[in-house]
């Protein structure tokens, strides 16, 4: 962190009123020239019938639903490509390309009925066969999606993605032009929610043969917006006139991916942004600012940050070592030291607001005596003889504290490296570090997205390669249970296994702040932490 001090008074500090007046007049003139105006409540971004919204956010690592796997990409992809269902601001599953669905065969089959007359953004018909081919792309054995395990409940899906089964054996089929039939290997009560994931959005069948489909010139999508511009600094999206719900209220979305290192708060104040995430260190003063305060928003995030181990190799194949790390670090205290009201210690893998979040605390418990005993049981009394390992992350806030506590509390010295985002993600999938970190945001609002998908045996996102029959059975029971009590009981059992075996250590639940123009309506993250741009509009008179 750096610390600043005001400039010399003779230049700009505490300007005299006359200068302020001149400055304000100049600012007003500039604002008018730039198409903005000021009101008694402060500066507002361009509003009057502009039909555009300017947002600050990350650039998508990939626009392909089957390739993207991070929250920043999902934010973009979910605007360009739609799936059969979607999640609203309350976290409920809503119809999207499908207007209805029904579960039959004792929960082993789901039939989705597409809305009549669906078309892609270029006017071509969107058929049930497009849905099936889009989902089969996710499973492609040569290079399955990182999130391919979302479809593991589908008959034959896992065998196909692992290269041991046939495509024709996958339980995905189309009936006529508007019905998609999904046969499940086990009853999956959350499948309609799973389908809302941006990974399972519908793409044109020609997507693998026509590279232009992901460019502004040749783009064809199924979402509320089309891709009209793509540069290093901006992703521009234009309302899709063929969208199933009609053309969105906002015609153009300017997603600025780079604001030249400037403060997003300053850019918002200047009217260059209508909506932007900000950090707590700015939010705390903005709350008391008469002009900016009304634009401050809290954004709960359905996410959990956790640390994990490569359980397939020593030393972390030994449960005693994992428990020593779990109990030998005061995880909750480290979270508390952040003094961030929105970052709270995790009480399990399933974050609040996600169905299946438990009232029981499955979080790590700091107990140094037990940690030392576990370390001794593993053969490393007081850390003596502990092999050289390296904590590798994408650069997380707790890294330095963890390294320090392992040294101070357990006598273990470990190495540390931070990788850039893309490399880190690849590393996790191909050659997981001994000790790693992950921040996971809901693909869909369901407990299994944080349990079975991340820790189930053989799942694509089980980075630590942990395997537990007891855990798998517990999540399976939860998913096939008919009543909510049994569902919760199953997931609680699974979390108890995780707490005991410590393949991962849930650390904190996230959240954040944003600044949004008070006249911008609908800027509310949904149950996946994503803002659906189709729901944005300017207040009348804005």
């Amino acid at each position: 962190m750096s610390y600043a001090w005001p400039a010399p008074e003779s230049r700009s500090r505490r300007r005299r009123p006359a200068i302020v007046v001149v400055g304000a007049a100049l600012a007003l003139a500039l604002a008018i020239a730039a198409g903005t105006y000021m009101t008694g409540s402060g500066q507002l971004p361009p509003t009057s019938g502009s039909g555009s919204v300017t947002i600050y956010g990350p650039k998508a690592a990939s626009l392909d639903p089957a390739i993207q796997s991070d929250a920043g990409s999902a934010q973009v992809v979910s605007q360009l490509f739609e799936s059969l269902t979607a999640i609203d601001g309350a976290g409920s599953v809503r119809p999207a390309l499908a207007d209805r669905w029904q579960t039959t065969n004792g929960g082993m089959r789901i039939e989705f009925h597409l809305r009549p007359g669906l078309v892609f953004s270029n006017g071509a018909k969107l058929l049930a066969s497009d849905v099936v081919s889009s989902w089969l792309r996710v499973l492609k054995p040569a290079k399955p999606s990182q999130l391919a395990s979302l479809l593991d409940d589908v008959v034959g899906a896992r065998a196909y993605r692992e290269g041991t089964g046939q495509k024709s054996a996958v339980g995905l089929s189309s009936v006529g032009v508007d019905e998609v039939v999904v046969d499940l290997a086990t009853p999956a009560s959350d499948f309609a929610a799973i389908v809302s994931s941006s990974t399972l959005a519908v793409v044109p069948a020609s997507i693998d043969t026509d590279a232009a489909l992901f460019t502004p010139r040749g783009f064809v999508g199924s979402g509320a917006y089309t891709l009209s511009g793509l540069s290093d600094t901006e992703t521009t999206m234009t309302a899709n006139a063929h969208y199933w719900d009609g053309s969105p209220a906002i015609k153009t979305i300017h997603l600025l991916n780079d604001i030249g290192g400037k403060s997003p708060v300053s850019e918002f104040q200047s009217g260059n942004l209508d909506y932007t995430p900000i950090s707590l260190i700015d939010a705390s003063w903005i709350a008391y600012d008469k002009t900016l305060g009304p634009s401050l928003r809290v954004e709960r995030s359905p996410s959990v940050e956790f640390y994990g181990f490569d359980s397939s190799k020593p030393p972390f194949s030994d449960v005693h070592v994992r428990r020593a790390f779990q109990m030998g670090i005061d995880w909750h205290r480290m979270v508390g030291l952040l003094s961030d009201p929105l970052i709270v210690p995790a009480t399990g893998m399933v974050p609040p607001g996600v169905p299946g979040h438990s009232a029981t605390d499955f979080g790590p418990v700091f107990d140094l005596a037990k940690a030392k005993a576990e370390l001794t049981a593993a053969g490393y009394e007081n850390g003596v003889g502990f092999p050289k390992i390296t904590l590798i992350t994408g650069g997380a806030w707790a890294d330095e504290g963890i390294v320090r506590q392992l040294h101070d509390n357990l006598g273990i010295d470990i190495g540390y490296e931070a990788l850039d985002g893309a490399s880190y993600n690849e590393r996790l999938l191909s050659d997981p570090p001994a000790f790693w970190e992950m921040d996971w945001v809901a693909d869909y609002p369901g407990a299994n997205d944080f349990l079975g998908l991340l820790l189930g045996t053989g799942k694509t996102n089980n980075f630590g390669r942990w395997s537990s029959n007891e855990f798998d059975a517990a999540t399976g029971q939860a998913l096939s249970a008919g009543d909510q009590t049994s569902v919760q009981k199953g997931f609680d059992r699974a979390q108890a296994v995780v707490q005991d075996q410590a393949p991962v250590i849930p650390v904190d639940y996230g959240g954040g702040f944003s600044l949004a123009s008070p006249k911008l309506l609908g800027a509310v993250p949904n149950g996946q932490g994503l803002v659906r741009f189709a729901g944005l509009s300017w207040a009348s008179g804005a």
Partner: protein
Amino acid sequence: MNALSRNRFARVGVAVAVAVAMAIGSGAGSVAAASIAFGTPSASSSFGKGVTFRQPFSGGATFREVDIAITDARSFGPAVVRIDAPGASSFTYVLDALTANLRPNTQLVGRFEVTLADGTVEKGPDIRVTYQDDRFKWRTKVGTIVRLHWYDGDEAFAQQALLLGEKGISNAATFLGFKETAPVDFYVYSDQSSFYDALGPDARDNVGGRAIPETRTLFALIAPGDISYASTVVPHELTHVVFGDITRNPYHQPVNWLNEGIAVYVSQGFDSSDKQLVEQAAADGSLMPLSAIRGMFPTTQDRFYLAYAESVSAVDYFVRTYGREDLVRLVKAFGTGASDDEAFTAAIGLGVDGFDTAWMKVNGVTALRSFGPQPAPTGPATANSKSGGSGESSNSLPVVPLLAAVAVLVGLLLVVVLMFRRARSRGAS
């Protein structure tokens, strides 16, 4: 999905910045052989552009992967970036100044690491380089602790500035009960444009000085002859360096108002203009609680100055009420990794919020009005709300429209029956 793009912690460092840094190769292809011999590496710095690391090699090898690990004094541990297109005879990597948030005098250590086909990792030599502001012909004057770098103004001006620096750091260290021994680099810019370019695009308006304790560097905007401003900004920024040395811990940073408040208190005291600002804010209801300025200071000019005034007011109140020794105890507690609450409680028996409340009370304020956060206004019916229903097993028609349709049909039937009966009765008559 993973949250690669989620950035929660305002950490200035390579760890985050390198995520978008640029990797380039000096040629394509790899060489098949069993080993690799690293040649003499080099690095060059170019202000505004970044730092280029070069590592020649020979012997050849089939690389599975080539990375560069860069250690930056501002961050914990090395950041590792993969080189996507390693050259045939040398590796090249450019650390972009903007994306890596580089500031002049940032010391970097780079090292190329090659993973061979058999998984063996070969590490090259360390490449040390300092990112410099090469736009000016800097002159340097060295004191006991402070190294003054300036490019405009005469020797006398530099000597005065150096003395201010030496005195400033001595005063700050004495005030905070600490002994400084390591050198501090102090860069003096004479024009605002060059100064702001050095600070980078995220610099707040109205800034005249900045300290980066991690690199033990401070920057100040001082025109030759404007030594009166230097007499405040120099000790102010140096106090931050001392404060940073005392409070550094692996967990969190102390509340910013305390850091800034002590810097103002040491450099100029709680002067009349700051008193006036606080009094006025207390009177008109615009005073911010100290908790509001625990992080960044406001971007708006009035609030920016008020934040400094409140900070020094709070430190002044602390010293008057509890004494300097308790302030020293408070500051030192942060260095042990204590939380804000623990540090305050250890020093004065009152938590940080309790101190905040007490300070506000002294200023005649018991309740403050916050303007946010506000709930986001919902839009009109959106794509997924106006379609209605959950969609699950929705073969049946919605109940209300069905009832309405039934009612209309019954009504129509009654009308038809009545008309029919009326027609029949007419016919009968």
